[in-house]
């Protein structure tokens, strides 16, 4: 981006991609799908000490139709997985998924009959956060990493797949 102050008005020259991505990455609206311990650390990020508002992602929306970031925090059981899939499908494009904590990413210590061994088996995941649970600093790092992913995005990538419903 470049700012031109020579003329009467002030000018901003940029590509549309860079501008749109910049706007998107700084106004992520997360849908917190907090099921277990990670949900408590997610609350800690929202509270005053760590304050996720510094990164523009404090507008939590509990409706998937209003959000563009799905934060899966906690283990997902076989009873919960259809619900999670449904919520992901209800989110409008563009949308991103953060898999927070060992349980959501790989099942973690719960290698049992009822825990999904990583949500990425069934859903596309953009950023994985290691930790059991990840510290608030790690969650912020994950958010910053996602912002980098978003900056690499381009309008050219957004082509409707055959037969897929518009977001």
């Amino acid at each position, binding site marked *: 981006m470049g700012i031109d102050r020579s003329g009467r008005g002030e000018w901003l020259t940029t590509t549309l991609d860079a501008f749109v991505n910049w706007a998107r990455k700084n106004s992520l609206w997360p849908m917190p799908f907090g099921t*277990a*311990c990670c949900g408590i650390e997610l609350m800690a990020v929202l*509270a005053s000490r760590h304050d996720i508002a510094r990164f523009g992602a404090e507008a939590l929306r*509990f409706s998937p139709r209003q959000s563009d970031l799905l934060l899966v925090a906690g*283990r997902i059981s076989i009873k919960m997985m259809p619900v999670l899939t449904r919520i992901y499908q209800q989110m409008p494009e563009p949308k991103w998924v953060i898999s927070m904590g060992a349980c959501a990413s790989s099942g973690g210590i719960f290698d*049992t009959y009822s825990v999904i061994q990583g949500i990425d088996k069934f859903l596309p995941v953009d950023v994985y956060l290691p930790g*059991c649970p990840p510290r608030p600093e790690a969650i912020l790092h994950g958010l910053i990493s996602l912002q980098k992913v978003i900056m690499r995005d381009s309008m050219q990538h957004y082509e409707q797949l055959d037969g897929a419903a518009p977001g």
Partner: protein
Amino acid sequence: MTLTAKELSTEKLELNFGPSHPATHGTLRVQLEADGEIVTRADAEIGFLHSGFEKLGEHLSYNQYITITDRMNYLSPLCNNVAFALAVEKLLGIEAPKRAQYLRVLMCELSRIADHLLAIGMLAVDVGAFTVFLYGFRIREKIYDLFEMVCGARLTTSYTRVGGLMRDVPDDFDAVCREVLAEIPTAMEQIDGLLTHNRIWLDRTRNIGVITPEQAISYGLTGPIARATGIDYDIRVKEPYSCYEDFTFDVIIGENGDVYDRYMVRFYEVWESIKICEQVLDKLPSGPVNVDADTKYTLPPRNEIFNSIEALIHHFEVTMENRGFTPPVGETYVPTESPNGELGYFIVSDGGREPYRVRTRPPSLINFSVFPEIMPGQTISDIVAVLGSLNIIAGELDR
């Protein structure tokens, strides 16, 4: 043309609440039938976080299972650690040293403060007062720092071991802990000022979700919820464990069993917990925090492992797979007073290195079972207040 009331057709409204809803604090689903604003039937469906804790326990050794107990009640994991360690120690017939028992009490009470602060904060968020949550979380972060100081983790502490503790507290712990304890009353006064006499708060919580003492006994309710109905039963007093008999504190009893009384019981229990913590710090005895390593239940001191072959072999014997201690055949249950109520581990041993069966008595599940009974007659907006006041922890609810 005017319609008379007879001609207006009315029908019951079916509503679905959850499993992903901001006020369910995790994962549960309520199917409602409402007549206008009044709930006529509320069916709760749980199990959305069922993770097979009890099955997993049959495949892990006793010390390994302590890490799993953390993830059960993640608002106060240390209480779970202590409850499990006590049950295994009873199975083995040993007792942790006095210093370890006192430190366990201290950690349990700090957890109780943190748990109650979050429970009050989330209840306030649910009925629309966000500020309280932030005030409560400020202190909770300080308590997290204390946990981090003693065991290296904020949330999943795994601090106890069979026969004692992971390690002793650092030297400067006493001063730091007292500093934090001195800060809690300020936060409690702020919360008190925001809520206790607030007209909106009173309207939203008084005479809402009333539980009678008879219902409380029939439904097996324990902890602050039972005490809010007027039942004077606190396991710390009636069946003391881990040296709770050495400390003096009051048991907080409510009168009406409504949401407001549950809030007040939790609020005053924080003050009692501060008293207990200060007494522990004053009376803390010196000495080891683990039973003698010669019993083969605990690890030898770290510097001996590196300097003597006997201690190294001993360390190997305790930690390696297919090694480790084997308790006698039998079964034990130790009740403890967790922030939510009676928490106990029922352990069946067949003489092997892994428990044959580990059952948790989950206070959240049993406390929540009263929900379908008390909801009919309340308004839809009261659901969140009642859910918040029951303080349901999904990890413990479903296990």
